[in-house]
């Protein structure tokens, strides 16, 4: 049970003046239940990459296996693949069209050919999971705020009960609270349902807190792939491709340079706090008196 990409290449507008090699020989395996972050600057190929995963874009060359089956094989049902691999696009405006929120969420499960009760049950459950209040269910999706629209869009995919949930910049354009709410909600889903989550973002801060693994894209290539701690060790290279490590990484690196024995692998504020307190705690003990640094 996994997604596996072998030598995926994708070229936009092949043989035209607008030709662009968007993905270059991508080899990747995402096992079940992983929380993966895909990071890259604008135009690095991250959105193109995720659209391959549910067959919306067909690779120019290369093979993709979902649960061991070649998705490009003849007779493979893309519709079925899309019901297993849910993709939420960056702009909820691209998918909301119904007169009220609940009907809009129902669109996905309805397309799966489920019974009416099942559709409604799943939709209500999904709306509940994304934390949208019940009073909005019969409102027009166009009257909602940006954050609420995004929740509806995510619920629209969740109601299809995907095994893999891909989110393309789910926090773009949201205020800090809306961003944290949505990411917390997604992390909760990951934990409760055990689904694979792939989070696309260009904010390291967002990603560092939640994911098990980070994939860094640069000009259509996979630049780094590994645990967040390992990837952020390359913070200087990340900067050179227009990204950055979380801010605490910089603080910790600076402290280390100044001679404090802190853990430079701390990637969240909480971890950094622990590490710094530990260092000072030891110092206090050594000198036997309180020192104000």
């Amino acid at each position, binding site marked *: 049970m996994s997604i596996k990409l072998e030598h995926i290449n994708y070229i*936009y507008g092949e043989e035209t003046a607008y030709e662009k090699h968007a993905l270059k020989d991508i080899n990747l395996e995402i096992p079940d239940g992983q929380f993966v972050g895909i990071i890259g600057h604008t135009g690095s190929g991250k959105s193109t990459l995720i659209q391959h995963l549910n067959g919306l874009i067909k690779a120019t060359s290369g093979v993709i296996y979902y649960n061991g089956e070649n998705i490009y094989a003849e007779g493979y049902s893309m519709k079925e693949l899309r019901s297993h691999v849910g993709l939420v696009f960056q702009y909820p405006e691209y*998918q*909301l069209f119904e007169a009220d929120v609940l009907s809009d969420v129902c669109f996905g499960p309805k397309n799966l050919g489920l019974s009416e009760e099942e559709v409604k049950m799943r939709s209500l459950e999904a709306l509940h999971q994304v934390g949208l209040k019940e009073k909005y269910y019969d409102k027009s999706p166009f009257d909602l705020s940006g954050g609420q629209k995004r929740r509806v869009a995510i619920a629209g995919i969740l109601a299809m009960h995907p095994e893999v949930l891909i989110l393309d910049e789910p926090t773009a354009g949201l205020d800090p609270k809306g961003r944290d709410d949505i990411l917390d909600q997604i992390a909760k889903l990951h934990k409760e349902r055990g689904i694979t989550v792939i989070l696309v973002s260009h904010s390291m801060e967002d990603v560092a807190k939640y994911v098990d693994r980070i994939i860094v894209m640069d000009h259509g290539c996979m630049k780094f792939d590994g645990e967040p701690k390992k990837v952020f060790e390359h913070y200087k290279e990340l900067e050179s491709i227009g990204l950055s490590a979380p801010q605490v990484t910089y603080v910790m690196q600076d402290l280390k340079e100044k001679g404090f024995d802190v853990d430079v692998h701390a990637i969240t504020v909480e971890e950094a706090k622990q590490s710094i307190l530990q260092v000072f705690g030891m110092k206090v003990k050594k000198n036997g008196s309180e020192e104000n640094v």
Partner: protein
Amino acid sequence: MIRDITIGQYYPTDSVIHRLDPRTKLVWTLAYIFSLFLFRSFASYVVATVLLVTVIKISKVPFKFMVKGMKAVVILLLITVVFNLFLIPGTTLVQIWKLRITYEGLNTAVFMALRLTYLIIGSSVMTLTTTPNQLTDGMEKGLAPLNKIHVPVHDVAMMMSIALRFIPILLEETDKIMKAQMARGADFESGNLITKAKNMIPLLVPLFISAFRRANDLAMAMEARGYYGGEGRTKMRPLVYQKNDRIAYAILPVYLIAMFAAKKIVGI
């Protein structure tokens, strides 16, 4: 998928044709189209072919691109040819059962096919080598005298350039919306006409909403930058005829005379 539509889309490269004043290209294209209708003879069409091939060569646009535009009209072309071929009365050439091909029919069919093909390729040479903005600039300046009889030339040109500018944006948006809905299991391909039309709703509603929002935003952005119509508006790059344009205009009568002469002298 939808991105593949390339009829007359600007092909960015640097060539003598690309650098010509849009007015020159407009006049030439119109003259070329007229000449195709005016001089209906094989000899003239040879001249027209020579010109077209030469211009395509100079424009540095791959020939493949020109032909791509033809794909969209292949059906129309076939229908025209078939109708002309079988339905024009005259001297019978071949007869199969009740279908009769006449000499006149064959003649008309060939001319129709050639004329349509040249028409489309000829005008796509213009659109492939001229950005939409240049084109509307050219029209605005070329039609400026109409201002005197109160034709709102500037406004029409502005509307046209905005409309043209939005075609690729809306196409791209359609593509994105289609994908977003396909990710939710939408099906835009199968079913009969009525189901198909019904299945378009999840595509059309977001598309219209986004188009209106964009129009609104654009109007605001234009007003915010002080746009209030064409009066007293100057250009950042005013159109001025260069040496190449004068040469192009000088060739035009030569071409027309050649077409005329070819018809008169050769006679077919």
